[in-house]
């Protein structure tokens, strides 16, 4: 047994998985017992239900008429007619549709800024031995272990006059050290011969980055962009700190105010979300709108991230 578990041997042997039989089991594997299979199946079903169940009833409630919701007395579990009434009401009201617009624009602009800055920065840090390489790298790595604190950052943002501007939702969190380091480690894997030959042909650093390195790192760059996008869309704290003007609220603040705390929306001009307490269908429709971007971006992130970034990181 000790020989089996020794690390050396593990590293030396090839990591090819033997061809599995059609059932997916290796020939030497014992068939699972019926009881074991039943237990595992139940457990997996339960896990899937715990994740998807809430989403199912939330989507269903947002698509139900107010009569159905009143009759059930809460979240709807069994479909009884589908109506888009709640969504129509939301988008006929300026408060929520404006928040959706704000969140969308902040997400797009923030992702563009963050990705551009991170790609340029990561490439500049990928060349060991260049001018000031070590201190510049150190200043990024230090971000992993120390956080300056909420209050000094707040004072900086308000001192720059960024309060109540959309920039306050973008600039303070524009650089993620994690994303920069992920990009950098991928850029460093581009074979040096290619870069050297480009240099001999007279290509400058910008041309090398945009013509050679970036096209070879498309997947990881896209994943990093997606991570930034999800982060901007989900961000709540920055908005709570810096945006006092309710007309500039992103969706996350609306979600808190209206769905979690059940308070009427601020400065609502007219319509359903004015002074009336929020109806459940409308609340759930706002939740669904907040989930949708994550659902759209998610399959992409999953496909590339799990394969590339994490496995690469742990093997490295």
């Amino acid at each position: 047994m000790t020989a089996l578990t020794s690390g050396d041997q593990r590293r030396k042997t090839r990591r090819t998985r033997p061809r599995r039989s059609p059932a997916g089991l290796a020939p030497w594997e014992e068939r699972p017992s019926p009881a074991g299979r039943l237990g595992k199946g139940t457990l997996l079903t339960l896990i899937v239900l715990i994740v998807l169940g809430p989403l199912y009833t939330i989507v269903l409630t947002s698509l139900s008429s107010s009569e159905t919701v009143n009759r059930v007395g809460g979240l709807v579990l069994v479909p009884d007619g589908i109506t888009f009434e709640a969504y129509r009401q939301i988008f006929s009201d300026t408060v929520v549709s404006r928040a959706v617009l704000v969140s969308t624009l902040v997400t797009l602009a923030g992702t563009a800024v963050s990705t551009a800055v991170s790609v340029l920065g990561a490439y500049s840090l990928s060349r060991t031995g260049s001018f000031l390489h070590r201190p510049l790298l150190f200043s990024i790595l230090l971000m992993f272990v120390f956080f300056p604190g909420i209050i000094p950052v707040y004072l900086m943002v308000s001192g720059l006059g960024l309060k109540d501007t959309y920039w306050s939702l973008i600039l303070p969190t524009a650089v993620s050290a994690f994303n920069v380091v992920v990009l950098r480690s991928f850029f460093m894997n581009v074979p040096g011969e290619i870069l050297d030959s480009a240099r001999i042909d007279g290509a400058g650093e910008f041309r090398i980055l945009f013509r050679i390195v970036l096209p070879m790192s498309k997947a990881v760059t896209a994943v990093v962009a997606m991570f930034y996008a999800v982060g901007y869309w989900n961000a709540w704290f920055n908005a709570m700190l810096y945006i006092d003007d309710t007309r500039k609220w992103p969706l996350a603040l609306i979600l808190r105010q209206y769905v979690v705390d059940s308070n009427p929306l601020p400065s609502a001009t007219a319509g359903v979300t004015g002074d009336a307490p929020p109806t459940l269908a409308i609340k759930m429709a706002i939740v669904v709108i907040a989930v949708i971007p994550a659902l759209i971006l998610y399959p992409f992130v999953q496909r590339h991230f799990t394969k590339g970034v994490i496995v690469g990181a742990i093997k490295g």
Partner: protein
Amino acid sequence: MGVVTAKRGVDRRGASPPGRATPPPPLPWRAKLRRDWPLLVMNLPMLALVTVFWWLPALGNVIAFQDYNPFTGGILGSPVIGFTNFALLFQDAQFLRALLNTLSITAFQLVFYFPVPIMLALLLNSIVSARLRAFVQGVVYLPFFFSWVLVVAIFQQMFGGAGLVAQILRDNGREAIDWMTNSDTFLLLITSQTIWKDAGWGAIIFLAALSTIDPNLYEAAAVDGARRWRRMWHITLPGLRPVIVLLLILRLGDALNVGFEQFMLQRSAVGSEASEVFDTFVYWSGLRTGDLGYGAAAGLFKGLVGLLLILAANRVAHALGERGVYSRS
């Protein structure tokens, strides 16, 4: 996750990457600058952002040693009071409560959250059908991409006073409990939220470690007569050990960080007694009551103790023969 990748980044610094020519003798800095100025230009936007929103605020922590007043004095004009703010912190019952809450949340989650991604990874790894496994993986990763506002909203609809569970209990003639405002069960609530949101994503790193275990070991053990559970005990778990130890140490080094939005969002519902943690204390004592120097002192205390804990954790990792967050170069 971040740290694991960071480690990779740092390790590369010393040795020259494979395939690259051995470095020529060091150039004088002028020649280097002439060669590398485009790289510096590329670095500039990032450097500017990091300087303005990281370095300068880090230095701005001097207000922790001042009786800071933004209107009369600012940083340069406010009187310096030394360590008074820090001394006051330790006489502040609310600060000590935040410290205690933070540590007990960390301890509770070490026991009840930390093993969940490992067990989930083992379960996912044991699914024979590749398609089923991809499906379950896709489902359990999903909540990681939701914001905390969303997760709290969803939990409220499930476990709140008007939520689904209360609704079902009432329909069956029982008394409903509002879990979302119950401070006695708050630890349980936040741990379930963390499991729901993060456990699936947390399993990835263990799945990656599992994929590096040589399958021939399993075959050899099976031939030697080791059955399923024995193989897990003698091959799988030793294979996971380095990752488990590393993440455990990192979590201990990060003991003062229990998340922020999750607590901010639920503080008003549960009350500050149960939900006050370090970061919420900084926010309320500094920004809400306006004593910025005092709040900054609490924040700086947390930052410095956190830094020390991470460095110590890394030492421990090295002492145990693991690679740690970064290696000494």
